[in-house]
């Protein structure tokens, strides 16, 4: 649609999912991820692990916010190192703190932000924003200042601002950590209803009910990988021996 500054024509193949090959990442001389080789094609993927085990770093790899020190991450066959813009259009990201994700003063303006970046025409933008605000019960707040929303509403707005861009995959990094029970359930339901592939980092093990695959991280390595039951059991066992 628009001229890209990236010279090589990306050949994307949605069937390939997300591939991590020999990924290792360091901050300074601290190794935060090592020997990560994964192929993520399931629709619902959960990530659990102790504080500092590398979950957020892993999540950031998936849309190129972090590029691995060694190894490579491919999304639909596109390398995050060379096709970061393409990758970010395909992979949405929801952070833990909604306040850090809302960058415009009012609700509707913020929801429109990603679409502006994509160059979506004004009329279509307005329609898509109205639709997504309606879906998340924010329609009545369209012109309200974002800082007056409740914590739960802010997180819904942050999610709306990502979903409105219609990414094929969405990564959530602890989307419910700051929310109360009602809003946690609401976000869980939203995640449940998404057609997209989702990768959810969480400390809330209930969120993983019905997931297809759960990875357990420990000290930067994947130490368990399987259906929720067995992975959660492995995670509990791991924590008991701390």
């Amino acid at each position, binding site marked *: 649609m628009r001229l890209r500054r990236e010279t090589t024509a990306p050949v994307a193949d949605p069937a390939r999912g997300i591939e991590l090959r020999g990924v290792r990442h360091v901050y300074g001389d601290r190794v935060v991820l090592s020997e990560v080789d994964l192929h993520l094609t399931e629709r619902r993927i959960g990530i659990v692990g102790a504080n500092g085990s590398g979950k957020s770093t892993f999540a950031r790899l998936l849309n190129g916010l972090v590029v691995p020190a060694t190894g490579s991450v491919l999304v639909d066959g596109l390398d995050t190192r060379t096709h970061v813009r393409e990758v970010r259009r395909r992979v949405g990201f929801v952070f833990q703190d909604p306040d850090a994700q809302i960058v415009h003063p009012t609700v509707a303006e913020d929801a429109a932000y990603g679409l502006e970046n994509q160059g979506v025409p004004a009329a279509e933008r307005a329609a898509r924003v109205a639709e997504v605000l309606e879906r998340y019960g924010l329609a009545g707040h369209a012109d309200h*200042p974002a800082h007056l929303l409740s914590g739960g509403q802010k997180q819904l707005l942050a999610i709306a601002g990502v979903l409105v861009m219609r990414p094929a995959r969405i990564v959530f990094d602890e989307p419910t950590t700051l929310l109360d029970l009602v809003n946690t359930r609401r976000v869980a339901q939203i995640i449940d209803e998404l057609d997209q592939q989702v990768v959810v980092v969480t400390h809330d093990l209930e969120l993983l009910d019905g997931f297809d695959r759960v990875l357990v991280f420990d000290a930067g390595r994947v130490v368990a990988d399987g259906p929720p039951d067995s992975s959660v059991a492995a995670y509990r066992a791991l924590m008991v021996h701390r």
Partner: protein
Amino acid sequence: MTLALYVPRGTVVHRTPAGWKLLALAGLSVLVFAVPTLPVVCGALGAVVVVGLVVARLPAAVLLRQTRAVRWMLVAIFILHAVLTDVLTGTLTVLRLLALVLAAAVVTATTRVTAMVAVVERICRPLEWVGVRPARIGLVIAMALRFIPLIAERADRIRDAQAARGGSVRGLRGLRTTVVPLLVQVLQLAHTVSEALDARGADDVPLRRRDPRAT
């Protein structure tokens, strides 16, 4: 933190393009400074109040809040003039400033930030020739409006947390114990915000926009 913010109403003032409103604001400032006579200045003030309350149907509280924000400054200016020049000049100066403050409040309360930002971007368009992205300038303004209340709120929270533990929140010591943690929080926030901007395609903005933003 009180910033005059958009008050949604479907009036003709709201629908007037942001560029025209800003132009009218500029015209008004020129007028009250070029023709500083009591009838002109009173007329301008009256017109602003009528446009704000009657035509744009803004709540009086919006205008009162702005007046209250500048009241001590106006009083000081009036006293200064009364002592140094004369009461008439003092009155004129105060009414003139009040008219402009209220006019600015009417413009901000009837114009979406995006529309205002779009005007700024249009004005900055020539800067593209030297490699500046007008969209970036617009984003900075919008983000300032978004984050000022948030940072004020975080500062309050830090002060509360310290007061709850019996800390002093006033004076030089109070300043140090609130400013340092606030700075740390703001830097952390800035880091996440920049990641969130990236994740939502901030880098994707074309140098030339294909269509103006909705008003």
